[in-house]
């Protein structure tokens, strides 16, 4: 569904992505993990052309994102929903209007139809009682949930999550994880998740990619990822107290 072919991205003098090759399959949840500053968010931004690769190309459903412009780029981006790190909510719109924004700007739906969809998505993230609040009046976790409701309100085929659980309490983190899992299982949404949280990654991921120094050094199912013998992967697992003795089993959400 999404292919990154030998993608290179240089920021300043640093080669943040150094020949990344990665395929995201339809209906899977691919989790990208790795140390800070290693290019995880840059990878996501290249998928939707918020950044353009300096070398290589990104292909979505057969269309080259890195060369698209105008209507073609718009039609590619319409396939995506993105949850940004801080939620990226517009401060002057309340919760309901933030979620309604893509529907108001991109569709001809009536106000009642829009509000019905908005309430449905807000109920999914547990915020149906906070529709009148403004972003400045809600917590970081709630902002992320509103951002998620906005990302899914247009029923996109692909959702990109940039650090969906960072800064959240464990209960909110698991709630987001359950939502991501629900979207894949029930609606067949393809997801790409960038996270530091390996516990979350192992729970929701169908495959996990580890990005270090601008390169994918491991790409495996959670079961194989925890058994990886690559030094950087082992260090990353052990830093989060994940050790495997005998068989490892994916925990339920």
């Amino acid at each position: 569904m999404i292919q990154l072919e030998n993608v290179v991205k240089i920021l300043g003098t640093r080669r943040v992505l150094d020949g990344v090759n990665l395929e995201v399959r339809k209906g899977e949840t691919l989790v990208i993990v790795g140390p800070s500053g290693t290019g995880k968010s840059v990878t996501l931004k290249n998928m939707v052309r918020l950044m353009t690769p300096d070398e290589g190309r990104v292909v979505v459903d057969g269309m080259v994102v890195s060369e698209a412009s105008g209507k073609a780029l718009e039609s590619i981006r319409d396939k995506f929903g993105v949850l940004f790190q801080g939620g990226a909510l517009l401060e002057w719109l309340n919760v309901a209007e933030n979620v309604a924004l893509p529907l108001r700007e991109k569709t001809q739906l009536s106000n009642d139809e829009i509000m019905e969809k908005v309430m449905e998505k807000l109920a999914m993230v547990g915020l149906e009682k906070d529709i009148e609040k403004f972003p400045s009046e809600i917590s970081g976790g709630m902002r992320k949930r509103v951002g998620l409701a906005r990302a899914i309100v247009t029923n996109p085929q692909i959702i990109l999550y940039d650090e969906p659980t960072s800064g959240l309490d464990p209960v909110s983190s698991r709630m987001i994880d359950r939502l991501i899992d629900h979207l894949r299982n029930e609606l067949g949404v393809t997801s790409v998740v960038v996270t530091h949280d390996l516990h979350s990654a192992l729970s929701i991921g169908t495959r996990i990619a580890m990005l270090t120094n601008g390169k994918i050094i491991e790409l495996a199912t959670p079961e194989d990822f925890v058994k990886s013998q690559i030094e950087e992967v082992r260090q990353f697992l052990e830093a989060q107290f994940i050790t495997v003795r005998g068989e490892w089993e994916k925990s339920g959400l």
Partner: protein
Amino acid sequence: MGACRNAGRAIILLAEALLCIRYVLTRRSRREAIHQMFVGGIKSLTVITVVAAFTGMILALQTGIEMRRFGQEVYIGAAVMVSMLREMGPFMTGLILAASVGSAIAAQMGTMVVSEEIAALELMSINPVRYLVMPRLVAMMIMTPLLSFYSCIMGVVGGGIVGMTQLNVPWAAYIDNAIRFAANKDLFVGMLKAFLFGMIIVITACHQGFATTQGAVGVGNATRRTVILSFLSILIVGYMITRMFYV
């Protein structure tokens, strides 16, 4: 080289925003433009009133003291009116709006870039130029000439008060001279300047805001650059318009 590149990008942004003006009558854009008129215009009224009135008072006092030596102080009305209409009204209004509205727009856009709100808009296929820049541009293109005209009136009133109280010029004679020497051309040139200053302020602010990098420091830098560049542009464009119409 960098300055030329920035100027080029600002001109492209202006062209894009002008192309988007055809959407200004849609419900959301219309509402946003009116909101921006209120935020940018009406909220600046107090400071513009004070600055314009004192500018007129200073003009009247300075010219009146000199003209009194020749017994011509009755003509201060003409001096204040012509100065305010041609130069001081649009100039003072432009500077005040650059410092207040321009800096606020740059800070808002910069913060939106840093918090990825602009990226979110782009991903929702919502054109940030149409959504954010155009309503502000329309609002300022309308409000700056109106505020400039208002500042002229305040300046003339301020000058009249000084004329009456400090220079013994009767109010009726002051106003009579002021109106007699005011030409339509002066009003037109002043309004044209104000119109262009409004465009300069919004485009400079949005361009600097959109180019923000490096978090909070970047937002501060964008705000500072907006005020400086707007001041310089207002001075240069003001001179060029005067040169074009009066030389």
